[in-house]
């Protein structure tokens, strides 16, 4: 059960029940669809980038608590960041979740992710890593203006 408490931290449960920035931004200059074919979760991400800065970001879609909270907390973390900063954050987030089992993320690493560090517990649930990264893969697709939906597969 301790692992489950690590996974479903209060901040994650809060964001899953009350997702922030959960709204369509039809006029946004970047958007992409994300799809986790394994579980059927779908996400639509809208990103407004002005002069290299993410000035607004929103998402719509249904998913599990982990994927909804991840999308919510990602949008919160990215607003006001530059595209380069967003990319760097994704790399650190991804490493925290998918690093080899013998290289546990350091406390500094987790702390540097601020609130996103709450997802460190997902490491222990390999089948759920894709839930936590779906929004981020969709962000990559949106920033690169990929026409095909981002997929976790």
């Amino acid at each position: 059960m301790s692992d489950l408490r690590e996974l479903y931290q209060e901040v994650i449960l809060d964001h899953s029940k009350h997702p922030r920035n959960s709204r369509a931004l039809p006029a946004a200059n970047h958007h992409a669809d994300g799809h986790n074919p394994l579980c059927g979760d779908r996400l639509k991400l809208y990103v407004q980038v002005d002069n290299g800065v993410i000035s607004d970001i929103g998402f719509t879609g249904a998913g599990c608590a982990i994927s909804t909270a991840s999308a919510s907390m990602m949008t919160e973390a990215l607003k006001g960041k530059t595209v380069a900063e967003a990319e760097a954050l994704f790399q650190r987030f991804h490493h925290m979740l998918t690093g080899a089992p013998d290289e546990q993320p350091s406390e500094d690493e987790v702390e540097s992710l601020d609130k996103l560090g709450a997802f460190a517990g997902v490491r222990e649930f390999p089948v759920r890593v894709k839930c936590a990264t779906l929004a981020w893969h969709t962000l990559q697709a949106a920033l690169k203006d990929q026409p095909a939906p981002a997929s976790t597969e």
Partner: protein
Amino acid sequence: MTTTAPIRPSRPTSKPPRFDAAAIRRDFPLLQQKMRGKPLAYLDNAATSQKPQAVIAAIARYYNSLNANIHRGVYELSADATEAYEKARGKAAQFIGASDPREVIFVRGATEAINLVASSWGVVGIKPGDEIIVSALEHHSNIVPWQMLCQWQGAVLKVIPMNDAGELDLDAYAKLLNHRTRMVAVTHISNALGTINDVERIATMAHDAGAKVLIDGAQSVPHLAIDVKVLGCDFFVFSGHKVFGPTGIGALWARAQLLEAMPPYQGGGDMIASVTFEKTTYNVIPAKFEAGTPHIAGAIALASAFDYVNNIGFDAIAAQERDLLEYATGQLSSVPGLKLLGTAAHKAAVISFNLDGVHPHDVGTILDGEGVAVRTGHHCCQPVMDRLNVPATVRASFAFYNTREDIDRLVAALGRVKEVFG
């Protein structure tokens, strides 16, 4: 060493023989192990079944003492392996009520069997404008091969709709049937919802319209005594791993004259009578459809699974599973916020449900933490999910080795979900 199920032959009474679940469970080594420090409550039998020691031993015995390629060697070992493989074919035929073992083609599983029929029968049996009917309850494996065939041949796919309970609308089906209908491919039991379809009636109606009938028996073979003659179908397919046998082995049954008229599915060794660069003549059935070295060990071990199931008997299995279904339905119905999906009057021991406000994947992860293994997701039935307007469900599916205690643990674990999600 082999173990046998501790069930006496059925007595001539209406009461099924007493079912010793504890003894049965001891036959399944995997059920003895702990998951996440807790005893395993394995409730994902619609995905795959666990294997009795007798099946595991049959695989080891084959590789320890019988391994040789079949239908080839003149030496004794090869002849013995061939005999065991063909004996397994006979047992498979018997298990589904087929009188002629030549009508059983060993394949990888139900999926390959359906692809075989779509590729082989389909390309000669289907012309542009012809119609193929499937149902709203189908697994992707009984949809996609027909969609592919429709694309190749310019045919049209039609779908028998279902009601909110997950029962097929046979009045609508009657309206779909017409002189262009060539094939009706339906599942015997829905893997996602547990609905048992009236396949005999579906087959009769199809035949009256002049169409062939394929029944997907992947979910029925482990739970019901099958007699393909009574079902009245033209093709019947199933997977070994769902009926307590190994993965990678299954069977297609079809009437001999149909198989004889069909072109080969794959080319290669064993499926030929003679080969020259100018002309190849094909072998007779069933070899015509079994190109290459088959899963010999799998077929032999599958026969052991049939022996094991026959030894328990379908009367006892049905009684046990009926008890599990009734008990689980009652217990789960009393869980606050739980909604059952699939409430057909005629149902197998499969229960799909959702918990209000909690995504099935989160339910599955928390149940896993309690040692309860269920399937969560779309169950390879996205059209069923779309029809019920849910992205996914939690599914508990039972086998005869499950107990009321497994269900109590499922219900208790659902309480943990409430604790985490409030």
